[in-house]
């Protein structure tokens, strides 16, 4: 560890030919030696080129001249910057500079400490003549021999006390031969046990409660050796203790005996708790304040044989601050550990791991105030810890505290990894009175997100088709405004629906869109069976429903009394009045209760359409559609009348009059098209919801796992005036008759102005043939060229295609669009299709994260990204 006495690995007088230098795998290595001592050659031989940062190189960067001494100060600024960045990223880094001055070394040591990595020095000590000779051979080094003489003097002065500089180790190589013969190896950090993949049983603070520990181990299926000197699991599990085995409880020696046996046998790992640290200091005869149950341990250990006391002391002395396990996916530390400290080594890392992120203040009980680091934790690794007793083990941002206060009469808790199952046994009695009552950890996780969760350009990993999806900074900025000004509580905002592409443009006379192109596209992609769902012309709605307020609090962290939310495709509430929103949620919860029973879940998320359109969009309809209708229906009859008058006078008006009459007719059709989706509503009267997919429920992202018929069947059982069923037909694409029937169905829906239908492959939405090559298409970096392949989104199958009716499209393309079909057919679907795929993948990702119980910020990330992508410029008529 840092701060241990630096010993010179200086070779014996006999001069062994081979000196092996061991440096930590994640560390800073400082080369020390005069100009011409062979540092660069040495570095080249033993390290990768990118690992070595030389002052000469940095001088070149800032001065175009590696020997411009006037640039030295700026060059070191650059050097320090590069070194700091590499160390922050956990990379072994070697500094190739003379470093003969104490000040230069001190700066590098401080730099390493600021990044919590160890720092070693390798001193190359060559005779002055050798250095002088080498410099003379290099014409670019024109400084005189006095420079080397001065450097040697400084080196000599340094060597006497370099071991006190703060290096973990100083390796001194004397003479050309020894330097030539030396080898360098890297040694893994003690904390790095990433090769261990478990499965693990991670056990919270035991505090001398041997009986409860044994009960818990048995509950977990462990077999305890007679005499309690060890335990093993027939399933090959490994126990990981979060520390604080000792103090307060009735049998600290018994707990130590068992755990020491397990660790020695390799069936357990144990990190140090603050109580082990202090007990070890006390046993070592250091002066400590005897409090917090230390006396019990000392008394109990006094009754043990000297031999056991010695072994226990050695065991506790040897415990390290934390472990990284399972490829870095799991971190265990007594008091938790923030991400920047994972796998690092420094005094403050150890102190964080043992005592937590203390603020230096104390509370009214005289106990240290701890900063709630877990609330801000954004790391990918699961962090498991103890230290602060809580009534229940609760997840906060992928971290969990397992200290459930067994010694205070609570329980002893284990977390099974990777299954995330929590197993507890109750305390036999209250063994020790707590100083402060057990409370939930300060506040609940407040569900407040950080700006860094959403700001700037992001690349989001998605598990279902798409790989990594990019969100641009400017789109994130637009989404931030909408999200923070208008959206519902992010804890309810678990999903936003993706956009959906229309089919290839139809060439059929009088049509812009027709089912034939949708069927053909799916057939070509190898889809054999599709479902055609009626497209309700309403407003897209997502309904998140919890069975009761308890579920809302436990599963969504919402404790303001709401038990769900219904929101629009941009995340806004449907009703400004909170009582209306609440009433809608309550009715839906009632209607969906049997569905929750069926799904064995206390909550669910539904994808729906809220009807009528005018309920939400009345402002838009009045402002846009009705306004255009009013202007058209006022102006056009007067135009017709004026033209008729002119024609009556004998003026040749050509076809202008006929065209005016047709436009007047189209204006009425346009008006009928929007009016059919408007009906007055009052409160919730007249409002209905048409659900068509169950997006997720406990443990399952059903949008990913279940095919569409499953959803439609379950939803068809909802029987309530509030629910509008989603009519649908299936079509087998290899049966012309089946396709004809589905086409006829679409015609019947749309002839009277219905919006149309959505065609979806019946199979599961997530994985499909062709997703592997999707990376390029999903990135959306480049404007798709006009080529057929890219217009079709590079062969990836759309999750759904909307086929809209001829009359309905007047609302989209304008009253007279049927007169300009040739122009309008020239539309580009590439972007829309790419966007649909990306947003779909993000939506499934959000649902998967939700179903897996991932923290709020992880669910919010893809949801926010959908909104950001929606602000991309895409033809809104598609």
């Amino acid at each position, binding site marked *: 560890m840092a701060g241990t006495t630096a010993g010179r690995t200086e070779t014996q007088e006999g001069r062994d030919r081979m000196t092996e230098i061991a440096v930590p795998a994640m560390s800073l290595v400082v080369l020390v030696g005069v100009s011409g001592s062979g540092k660069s050659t040495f570095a080249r031989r033993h390290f990768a080129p990118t690992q070595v940062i030389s002052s000469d190189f940095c001088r070149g960067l800032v001065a175009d001249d590696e020997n411009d001494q006037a640039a030295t100060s700026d060059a070191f600024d650059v050097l320090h910057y590069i070194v700091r960045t590499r160390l922050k990223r956990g990379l072994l880094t070697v500094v190739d500079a003379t470093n003969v001055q104490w000040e230069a070394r001190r700066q590098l040591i401080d730099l390493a400490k600021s990044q919590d990595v160890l720092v070693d020095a390798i001193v190359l000590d060559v005779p002055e003549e050798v250095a002088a000779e080498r410099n003379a051979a290099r014409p670019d080094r024109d400084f005189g021999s006095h420079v080397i003489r001065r450097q040697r003097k400084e080196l000599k002065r340094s060597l006497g006390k370099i071991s006190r500089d703060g290096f973990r180790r100083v390796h001194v190589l004397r003479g050309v031969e020894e330097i030539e013969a030396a080898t360098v190896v890297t040694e893994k950090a003690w904390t790095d046990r990433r090769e261990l993949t478990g499965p693990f049983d991670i056990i919270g603070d035991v505090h001398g409660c041997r009986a409860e520990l044994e009960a818990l181990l048995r509950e977990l299926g462990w077999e305890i050796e007679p005499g309690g000197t060890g335990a093993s699991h027939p399933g090959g599990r490994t126990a990981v203790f979060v520390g604080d085995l000792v103090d307060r409880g009735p049998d600290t020696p018994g707990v130590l005996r068992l755990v020491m046996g397990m660790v020695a046998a390799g069936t357990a790992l144990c990190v140090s708790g603050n109580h082990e640290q202090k007990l070890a200091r006390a046993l070592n005869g250091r002066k400590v304040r005897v409090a917090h149950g230390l006396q019990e341990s000392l008394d109990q250990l006094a009754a043990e044989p000297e031999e056991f006391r010695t072994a226990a002391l050695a065991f506790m002395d040897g415990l390290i601050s934390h472990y990284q396990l399972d490829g870095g996916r799991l971190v265990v530390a007594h008091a938790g550990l923030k991400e920047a400290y994972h796998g690092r080594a420094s005094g403050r890392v150890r102190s964080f791991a043992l005592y937590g992120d203390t603020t230096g203040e104390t509370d009214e009980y005289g106990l240290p105030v701890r900063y709630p680091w877990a609330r*801000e934790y954004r790391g990918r690794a699961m962090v498991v810890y103890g230290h602060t007793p809580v009534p229940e083990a609760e997840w906060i941002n992928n971290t969990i505290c397992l200290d459930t206060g067994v010694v205070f009469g609570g329980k002893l808790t284990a977390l099974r990894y990777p299954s995330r199952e929590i197993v507890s046994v109750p305390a036999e009695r209250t063994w020790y009175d707590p100083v402060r009552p057990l409370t939930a950890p300060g506040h609940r996780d*407040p*569900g*407040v*997100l950080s*700006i860094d969760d*959403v700001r700037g350009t992001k690349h989001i990993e998605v598990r279902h088709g798409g790989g990594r999806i990019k969100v641009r900074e400017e*789109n994130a*900025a*637009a989404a*931030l*405004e*909408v*999200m*923070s000004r208008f959206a519902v*509580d*992010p804890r309810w905002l678990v999903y936003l629906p993706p956009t959906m592409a229309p089919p290839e443009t139809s060439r059929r006379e009088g049509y812009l869109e027709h089912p034939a192109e949708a069927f053909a596209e799916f057939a070509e992609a190898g889809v054999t069976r599709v479902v055609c769902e009626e497209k309700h012309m309403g407003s897209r709605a997502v309904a998140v429903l919890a069975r009761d307020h308890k579920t809302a609090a436990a599963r969504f962290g919402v404790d*303001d009394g709401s038990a769900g939310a219904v929101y*629009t*495709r*941009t995340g806004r509430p449907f009703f400004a009045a*909170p009582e209306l929103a609440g009433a809608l949620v309550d009715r839906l919860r009632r209607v969906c209760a049997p569905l929750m029973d069926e799904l064995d879940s206390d909550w669910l998320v539904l994808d729906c359409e809220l009807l009528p359109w005018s309920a939400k969009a009345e*402002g*838009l309809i*009045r402002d*846009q559609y*009705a*306004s*255009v*209708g*009013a*202007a*058209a229906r*006022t*102006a*056009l009859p*007067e*135009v017709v009348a*004026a*033209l008729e*008058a*002119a024609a009556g*006078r004998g*003026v040749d008006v050509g076809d*202008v009059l006929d065209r005016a009459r047709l436009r007047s007719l189209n204006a009425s059709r346009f008006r009928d098209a929007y*009016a059919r989706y*408007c009906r007055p509503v009052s409160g919730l009267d007249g409002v209905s919801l048409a659900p068509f997919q169950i997006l997720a429920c406990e443990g399952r992202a059903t949008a990913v796992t279940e095919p569409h018929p499953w959803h439609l069947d379950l939803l068809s059982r909802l029987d309530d005036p509030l629910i509008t069923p989603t009519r649908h037909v299936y079509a087998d694409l290899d049966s012309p008759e089946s396709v004809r029937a589905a086409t006829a169905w679409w015609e019947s829906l749309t002839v009277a102005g219905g919006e149309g239908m959505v065609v979806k492959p019946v199979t599961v939405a997530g994985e499909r043939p062709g997703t592997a090559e999707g990376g390029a298409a999903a990135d959306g970096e480049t404007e798709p060229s006009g080529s057929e392949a890219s217009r079709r989104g590079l062969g990836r199958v759309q999750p759904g295609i909307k086929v809209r009716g001829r009359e309905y499209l007047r*609302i*989209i*393309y*304008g009253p*007279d*669009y049927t007169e300009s079909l040739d122009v309008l057919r020239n539309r580009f679907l590439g972007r829309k299709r790419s966007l649909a795929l990306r947003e779909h993948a993000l939506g499934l990702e959000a649902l998967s994260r939700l179903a897996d119980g991932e923290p709020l910020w992880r669910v919010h990330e893809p949801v926010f990204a959908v*909104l950001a992508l*929606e602000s*991309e*410029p895409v*033809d*809104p*008529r598609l």
Partner: protein
Amino acid sequence: MRPATDLGFLLHKHPDRVQEFGQSYGVARVFYPEADEERCTAALMLDVDPIRLVRSRGRSTPDYALGQYVNDRPYAASSLLAGALADVFRTARAGRCASRPELAATPIPLEIALPALPCRGGPELAHRLFGPLGWEVEARAVPLDEAFPEWGDSRYVRLALRGRARLADALNQLYVLLPVLDDAKHYWIAPDEVDKLIRAGESWLAAHPERGLITRRYLGRRGALTRTAFARLAELGDDVEEDLEPPLEEEPSPSPEADAPAEAAEASAPGEVSAPEAEGSEGAGGKRPLNTVRRQAVLAVLDELGARTVIDLGCGTGQLVGALLADPAFTRVAGTDVSSQALTIAARKLKLDRMPERQRERLELFQGALTYTDDRFAGFDAAVLMEVVEHVDPPRLPALERVVFGAARPGHVVVTTPNAEYNVRYEFLTGMRHPDHRFEWTRAEFAAWAAKVGEEYRYDVAFRPVGDDDPELGPPTQMAVFTRREG
């Protein structure tokens, strides 16, 4: 004027033919439904192809709005008609007529009819604009949809003008006033509009009692030329774009002249041109506008608290930030807002690109949201939430409290918000003071909220009135000053 068909000479268009004039978006036609000794009517008919209208603008103009195809331009007497009028009747508008010069210089009896004139302000505004010019005005509102009477009137007016005027004057008045009444965002306005306005308004605009409004509206909406990605999200959510516009400035005026909060908002909206600053909020009797009073109250409190570093949370267009910067006692000034549009305006108003280095070093301006914790909010002596909390949905207030009082934890927090009790003093106010307000608190409600927040986050709180403290209703603006408890 006899024969009436002399109108054909004045307009330079023959009464017996349909004449076509190509426009980038379609065709303008002139024809005469009637033409005899007594009466002669020339019709200017615009055949606007909405698709051509969009596509003729090229890729540089924003095509990504649904409204561009479903658009009233083919039917309404908009700026397109004004443009066509200027083009087709160019000579007549200049008052030139080689064959009837005396007629061109003489007021003649005229009737002008516009079947669907978009008119923000309704028939009443049409009267106010055309009446003073000597026209007998008949303006009738067009209903939105007769099947939905509850929707009320549309923004269109059927306008008929009768009077005696020089034809050139009539044409110039229409040229200027059609877009003014329309007050839409003209995406296709030319950069030399100021010159055009001056030329077309030469003979009548200077004396017009509504010249302020005419000028402001004619030029004021140019800032709307640029549409942001943000605006696209409006349509997506079935919302009207205006609903989402950032609440830049707001103040209902107690004076009967100003016609609603919206008008006040407009006064300091993007148009930096000649619009008198916050004209709409100028109180009767020359009192200082409330937003000025409020800003000065906040500055006074900050001074009193001895704050040296201040962050304005929800800085809008940066008026407070500007005032803070002007006082060298404030060594570090930050402004943050969630609206990138507001920040753009703030940067322009503060002349960020020309700011001296020493002043620039004291200033930070960045986009941030008060519902997301943000390290950049931390480390200030004081934070200001001036007219901000009322723009946050009540269920989201706890998040704001946590972000400001829990995470950023400045030494002081100054909060101002409208006093709802005072609203009865605003004669023309219905509802809340700004359409984006999610609530307005009484003094008791504000006090209860402040006390709760102070308790939860360990701040002491004191209250101050801002503006005239009405003995019954309290001040128009209420202020709470929070001070962090130490230890």
